[in-house]
């Protein structure tokens, strides 16, 4: 229960910060997405199911706060969190470049899915010539914030492990 409340609070704070503050920063449409990075970090550190749950919860929160249809961000982050969890045991997680690389790849996957969902559900068409540079920049920005977020998720996880 304690873990759920803590992760929930972290997700709420991340979603609020993203929708209220980070979305305002100029960056050719690219917005830093800490929720996605948290989903990827959780997937890597705690497994695919946890990554998927955190991704879904965080994505739904973003959908709620951003005014879009519920499920768009939820689905894309669910897949990104789950996908990162598939590498849980096959990658040496002490590698210092892992958070940045994982966040970069997770962002590419999540944003690609988001655009596909938008097209499939008829919410909008995608200009790939515009979307690709924006997504790459966003992936780069997420890579920058990934190391401290990975470290935070890990320290939370270790604290809960010690308590049990």
């Amino acid at each position, binding site marked *: 229960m304690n873990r759920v409340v803590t992760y929930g609070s972290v997700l709420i704070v991340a979603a*609020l910060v993203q929708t209220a503050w980070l979305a*305002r920063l100029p960056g050719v449409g690219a917005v830093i997405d800490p929720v996605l990075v948290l989903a990827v970090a959780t997937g890597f550190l705690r497994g*695919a199911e946890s990554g998927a749950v955190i991704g*879904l919860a965080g994505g739904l929160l973003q959908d709620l706060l951003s*005014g879009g249809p519920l499920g*768009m961000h*939820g689905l894309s982050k*669910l897949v990104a969190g789950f996908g990162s969890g598939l590498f849980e045991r096959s990658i040496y997680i002490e590698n210092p470049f892992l958070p940045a690389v994982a966040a970069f790849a997770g962002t590419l996957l999540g944003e690609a899915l988001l655009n596909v969902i938008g097209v499939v559900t008829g919410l909008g068409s995608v200009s790939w010539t515009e979307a690709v540079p924006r997504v790459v920049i966003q992936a780069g920005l997420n890579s920058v914030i990934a190391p401290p977020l990975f470290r935070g998720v890990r320290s939370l996880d270790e604290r809960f492990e010690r308590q049990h």
Partner: protein
Amino acid sequence: MFDVIIARRRIAVLVGLILFTLALLTSQVRSADRRQVGPLGTAVLTVLLPIQTGMAHVADAGTRWWRLYTEIGRLRQENARLRSEVERLSQDLTVVREQAISARRMERLLEFRPQPGYRTVAARVIARDAERWFSTLLVDRGSRDGVRRNAAVATADGVIGRVIEVTPTAARVLLIGDSRSALSVIVQRSREAGIVEGRGGEMLHLKYLSRTGDVAAGDLVVTSGLGGVFPRGLVVGRIVTINREPGALQLEAEVKSAASVARLEEVVILIAKP
């Protein structure tokens, strides 16, 4: 065996969550405004929206401060640029005004009617006698320009003085107001002859006028042409007062110099043609 169970559980979780999300998304997309948050979503928004609004206000304030800060920096730069522009334009304006004033003076100088048998050389005043202000001045023309000792110096208003020293590039002019200066003149109206002497200022002393001569205040005094220094007919000044002392053999008068030397900047030097 254990890994297979884990893998199946993973797949089951993924499929379950995806189905849930797709169902949610489908229900959203089917609705008219493509968004139905439901009672749970409304409850969450009821709690989170005030916080989000507060954070947005903080961001707005931050954005305003940042804009103000960058605006101040921009205004400072613009202010500095405009100041330097104003300074430059002021300097330009000063130069242009100076040129306009100089041009007006030159136009006045051109009004000087050339004397027969003389050629004129325009000269700029480059220095004045600091100790005896109205006595002598230096001009930027010398023997290289044909200037010779005793050449007459005048402006469009009247005679100024004569050259007393000449170097190749400059000449010193003894002004008619200098106490060492004396020139032969006539009263233009009555043709009475006399001598004008300097008094160290713009007021000149006219003496040796005939006691019975027809002289009145306001009469114009011009050079007589005698003495070979000043050509005939140059305006010297105008009689201001006449001293008629009883028993005196001759009349004397005070003459105000026609040409003001106080702010003199350009003059004409008259050089006798060989």
